[in-house]
């Protein structure tokens, strides 16, 4: 009985946590909306050079200052959401969908199929993600479809591992044995008995995986190996404005803060929806 109880939450932390619970999903939704409509709601043309100095500070006119060409940063960040959020979302969906499918199949079919897929993907995990990204980009270049595939491939093994372990745990439960003993098909068992019991962990994993993908994509772009000019995601925005760092230009920090706001918001949203324990043990 004690394992289901948690200590009392009172005081300012609780108020903070409660507000956080509302604000964080709002931030996530905001960036999602920007990914779709950002280009049209941007106050200025993201690519247009404005009547301004380079690396201007924050002002009434340019809320987040200007970049190394004198373009409006706010517009560039809002428009860049399309790449950062869009590419990450596609890559994550691809990785999670294939991870769930393979994990389900491995747990329901078992035997040689399970062993072969598990061995292969587990070996892939031993390539650090950034390294894997660099090798893939070195080989295939950095067009957007390649980036999506690259990110999906990098995170597929981790995704498979976690979904397989969730699926195997569900498959070991007696109600699955009952369905087997009844003579139900493997497909029925996968889709009707196991999958519905994986939804929670799958969604939590999707969120965490999305964070990793955003961070990796931003890192690649920051290194100049991700989204290529003239297109610019948030990582590219940091990169192209690095010369402004010695002047403390907001153009360097703001895109990085945009990334942080997205990842932190997703992170805390997962925490409040699924509880803190979901994260532990996720690689």
């Amino acid at each position, binding site marked *: 009985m*004690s394992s*289901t109880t948690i200590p009392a939450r009172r005081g300012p932390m609780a108020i903070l946590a409660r507000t956080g619970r509302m604000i964080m999903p709002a931030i996530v939704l905001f960036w999602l909306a920007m990914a779709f409509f950002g280009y049209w709601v941007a106050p200025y043309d993201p690519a247009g050079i404005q009547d301004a100095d380079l690396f201007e500070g924050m002002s009434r006119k340019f809320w987040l200052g200007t970049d190394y060409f004198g373009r409006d940063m706010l517009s560039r960040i809002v428009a860049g959401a399309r790449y950062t959020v869009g590419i990450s979302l596609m890559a994550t969906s691809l990785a999670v969908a294939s991870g769930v499918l393979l994990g389900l199949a491995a747990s329901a079919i078992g035997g040689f199929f399970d062993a072969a897929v598990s061995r292969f993907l587990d070996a892939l995990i031993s390539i650090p993600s950034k390294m894997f990204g660099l090798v893939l980009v070195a080989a295939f270049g950095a067009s957007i479809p390649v980036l999506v595939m690259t990110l999906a491939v990098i995170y597929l093994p981790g995704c498979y591992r976690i979904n397989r372990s969730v699926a195997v745990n569900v498959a070991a439960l007696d109600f699955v044995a*009952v369905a087997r003993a009844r003579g139900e098909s493997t497909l029925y068992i996968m889709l009707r008995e196991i999958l519905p019991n994986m*939804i929670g962990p799958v969604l939590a994993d999707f969120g965490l995986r999305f964070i990793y993908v955003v961070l990796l994509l931003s890192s690649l772009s920051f290194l100049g190996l991700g989204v290529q000019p003239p297109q610019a995601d948030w990582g590219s925005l940091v990169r192209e404005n690095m010369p402004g760092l010695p002047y403390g230009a907001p153009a360097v920090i703001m895109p990085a803060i945009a990334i942080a706001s997205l990842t932190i918001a997703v992170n805390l949203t997962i925490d409040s929806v699924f509880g803190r324990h979901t994260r532990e043990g996720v690689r």
Partner: protein
Amino acid sequence: MEPLIDIRDLRIRARTAEGQDIEIVKGVSFSVRRGEVMGLIGESGSGKTTIALATMGYARYGCRIAGGTIRIGDIAVTSLDEKGLQQLRGQKIAYIAQSAAASFNPSRPIMAQVIESALIHGLMGEAAAREKAISLFRAMAIPQPETIGNRYPHQVSGGQLQRLMAAMALITDPDVVIFDEPTTALDVTTQIEVLKAFKEAIRDRNTTGIYVTHDLAVIAQIADSITVLRHGEVQEIATTSQLISNPRHEYSQKLLAAAEPALRPSPVTDRQARPLLRVSGMSAGYGLTGKDGMPAVPVLRDIDLTIGRGRALGVIGESGCGKSTLARVIAGLTPASRGTVTLDGIDLAPGIAGRSREQLREIQLVFQMADTALNPKVTIDEIIGRPLTFFFGMKGAARDRRVRELLDLTRLPATVQHRFPGDLSGGQKQRVNFARALAAQPKLLLCDEVTSALDTVVAAAILDLMAELRRELGLTTMFISHDLKTIRAICDDIMVLYSGRVVETMPAAALETGRHHPYAGLLLGSVPALRTDWLESTEAASLQVQGVPPALSSGGCAFFPRCTLAEPGRCNTEVPPFRDYPGGIGAACFRLAAE
């Protein structure tokens, strides 16, 4: 005389996962005099362990003592600070937990842990503490008392660990000992030795104790008086003999009735009834199958059994004897590697894939844990309705009607139909479990420990349901359990498994009479009876040799290492053949054959 333990209006609150603050112990009061043992009995959720731990000023993570007073002698436990509590714990009052295997630190040798509290409290030097520990090991009849302390917990058997934990508690000569279900995790044949050791230690040291358990027969052996708890409230406090002979509270009466389940009359009294299920020469296990048809890790060997039409066979044995595997083999979930399974005269394929849908329908399995046997994401309607659609193609109104009939048959309210398993109580879930199996209209029902996870009163109701179903539907059943009392209540025949082999079969009526295989005899004699002098009068403990854990040896009788009657040179080299004896008993034993 002043009581040594005095608990007044104890209230304990806990915070649930949903963040609600609820009271789990609601104003409990009782007292225990020096040299007496108080039994706390109740079902899960009654708060008995929480109360016992509170006596040490301890509340588990998320719980807190919210009100009331606890006094041990002249110490007010409830007003002690952390420092004071540390001095109290292990010195004045000691704790014996349910699972010794989990309560010993795996990284430290046993001796260091046994003497730890003596050293923490500075009661004696290390050498003196070791010496005292060894004398306690002797008193507890632990084998190799001189050297066992050098071992690590995983190197020692469960029954021995439990007694080592008692030594650990007694090392400081505490005024009070808390026993928290200390024998629940043990097999019944091990439980009896541990109980004997505890009882002697309590008597020799005039220990004051609180003994927590859900088993009335166990507590009757140890306690002087008993507090009956339910939902965190005291129902009745009485002396042990008074409670078991004349319980006053209605709930106590229910507990008592459930502790000695009444025999449910069998609808088919003919032992020679036409066999429905026949298993012959069956072996099964895990891993690759060798040339001789034996798997790499055999769990069952050369099993023969028949169940007559309409009859109920009880399969009993300790954990790990292979009884659950037996049900899985018959259902086809674990394919047999050798031998045959015949249902109604037709040989069944070993695995599910080789059986027809009709054959699968005829055998239905009911699992132990209703929690894991019902898919939590599916409504009761779909759980029961699926076999109707799958086997009979039922849909729409016809299916709906049949589901309601099945709910009614299993005494479930129609309102549960569109609920999810999580909304139901444990007993209701187990009924749904049955309803699903019955939906297939099986000929044979395999029940694997179906009452073991339930509280005794709820389990008794499930037994009633089973008896009713047998009577109304003429179901043939195989009932697997580790608990002889439930098996006897419901079964016509009993089969005893030991280490993967059948050692004895008998009609239920032959339980109390007749001569038995030594293991079966030990098993029958180890089940505590509901009277206070059972532990003194039973001779079961002398029926087995101490030590060596059971192993499946192909070269002899598996019970040989524990058998006091064994004949070395024969029993450990040849597998004893199965033979029939008077009274309908069949057994595999050389000694029984020789007499």
